[in-house]
């Protein structure tokens, strides 16, 4: 019984800590800051440097490809 209670208390403590951490992320807009300062610039760099097909050089009437 005691062991079960201890495990429950541990789960509650971990759950509480995770909840508090998530609240901190929410309250201080850490998700927004991370996306704005790191994720978006990284992705933009990737998209800017991506090789792309140029549909303008395809002769009129020729089927587009997926390569």
């Amino acid at each position, binding site marked *: 019984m005691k062991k079960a209670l201890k495990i429950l208390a541990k789960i509650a403590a971990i759950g509480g800590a995770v909840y508090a951490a*998530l*609240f901190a992320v*929410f*309250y*201080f*807009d850490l*998700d*927004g*800051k991370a*996306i*704005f300062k790191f*994720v*978006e610039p990284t*992705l*933009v760099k*990737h*998209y800017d440097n991506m090789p*792309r*097909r*140029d*549909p*303008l050089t395809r002769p*009129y*009437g*020729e*089927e*587009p490809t*997926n390569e």
Partner: protein
Amino acid sequence: MKKPDWNKLKEKLKKTDPKKLARDFLYGKPHGERRLGDLYEPKTGLYKHREWRGVKDTFYYFNNIWLYNYGMMVADIMKYGGLVTFAKGVWRYRWVGQSYLPVMHWFDRGLEGVRGEALRASAWHYRAMVNQTIEQFMRMFCADQNIGGSKALYDQTIAHDETVWGGVFYPYRDQLDDIPLQMIPYFVTCHVNNHTVLNYIDATQSLGLPGDPCPMCQAECGLMILDDEPDFYPAFITTNEACDGSVATSVIQDWMINKPLYAMPQPMQFDDPLVQEHCAKEIEGAFRFIEEQMGVEFHWSELVKHVEEQNELQRFEWEKWDVAANTSYYPITGTAQALYRIYQSQRGNRKIWHDTDKRVRKILEKCVEQKIDTFPLTRHRVIAWSCAPLYYSHWCTWAYNCWGLNCIINMDSLMFDMTIRTDTYDNMLLDFARYHEWAPMRRMAVGGLKHIFELWENMEKFHCDMVMMYDQLQCKGMQGVHGLFEDEFRARDIHAIWMPHALPDKRTVSREEIRRIINDYMFTVMQEEPLDPSLLEFDDSKSW
């Protein structure tokens, strides 16, 4: 690190009223003391910290909006195709990776300062739109031949211009799915993250195409030029949307896509009964095209089922309008009202709209029964007319927080003001034609003077005392009637603020400039003082 000034801190503590502090903590600061503008970091619009709305509303926002929606987004992605397909799409397409990751900031901007039942009802609208966005882009990716999607799904997906109403595909919904070409890669991105669309506008202009047509058409065209459109469909249906600029877009799309295309125009002078018959024939032509290209059959029972369900959505919309028009208990922000309505009526019948309406109905009924004044510091009831700036759809939230301008209703919400008959095939077809003719940017914006001037009767109906007149600088149709509106506003003694913008392009008229124009009008013409002076001027030029 800067040392804290203990003397200043002591002084501040001495002046602090602990009772007020406790009250503000429990219930949030009252409107007028919030200083929401102080929460922003300069330029980016990021929050130093998110708003404290009192214990109940802050934790509602955290649990039922922020956590819930992040969780539901993952659940939706899993449900509609899985994380691997999503990751492939994010890696391949700029518009999804750059635009949709900061989606919770879209919620934040639209729900700033909102409390109680209005917070709850408006957030449900956002949740529905997010669900539909995910469903659509996941379907695109699952069938996308560019990233190795399923050929079977590709053969069961038809594409169409975003202003072709999803209802055209109701007879075939049990055999295929329809996905608009531009709604997710273009339209919704502008609201969530307005940086992305600029790439597509610039791509079009870089070819030497003129920069003065509607930037919406330019952006849609740019998606093709930059090869950023998934290949998820064997055929597509296009329309002239609202103007000639968009016809040109269709020509370029046709060239670049090079797949079977059916053009289904939306007539401008739709009051003519002959036009009505012609439009009905065009829709029948679309039915035949779908059947020939997709190998599907016309199922009347499927059509009736979806139309009846859509009529149910329309009837609830009318109930909402009734509460909005005649009471102060309407719990939906101007932004949520406008975006949800246009999204729902354009996309057609989907389960999520019914789930959302059920939830919103409960909140709406509670507000009416308990006479909850949802926007208590309303000074003016505003109707917004013409086409809105996509990069600043949340101006309504700002205008209420700063000036007490409560945007009750807008033009785009009022377009599809009808149910559809299912008693006979002919009646259904005529109603389909009417619905198609009343498309976005069509019925009131370029549908003839009588319809453009439906503003006056709606102003009366919704008991509005002010007009926010959108002025899309690159829309030749609406620019042509500018003077007529000016004359009418003067003759009718109506307070109207012209809000210039360039639809998706924030570089032409910035959000800061839009706010300045409203501020000037409120100070000089209305002789009023702001409710929250911290919102008068701030730089959000780099914000999403």
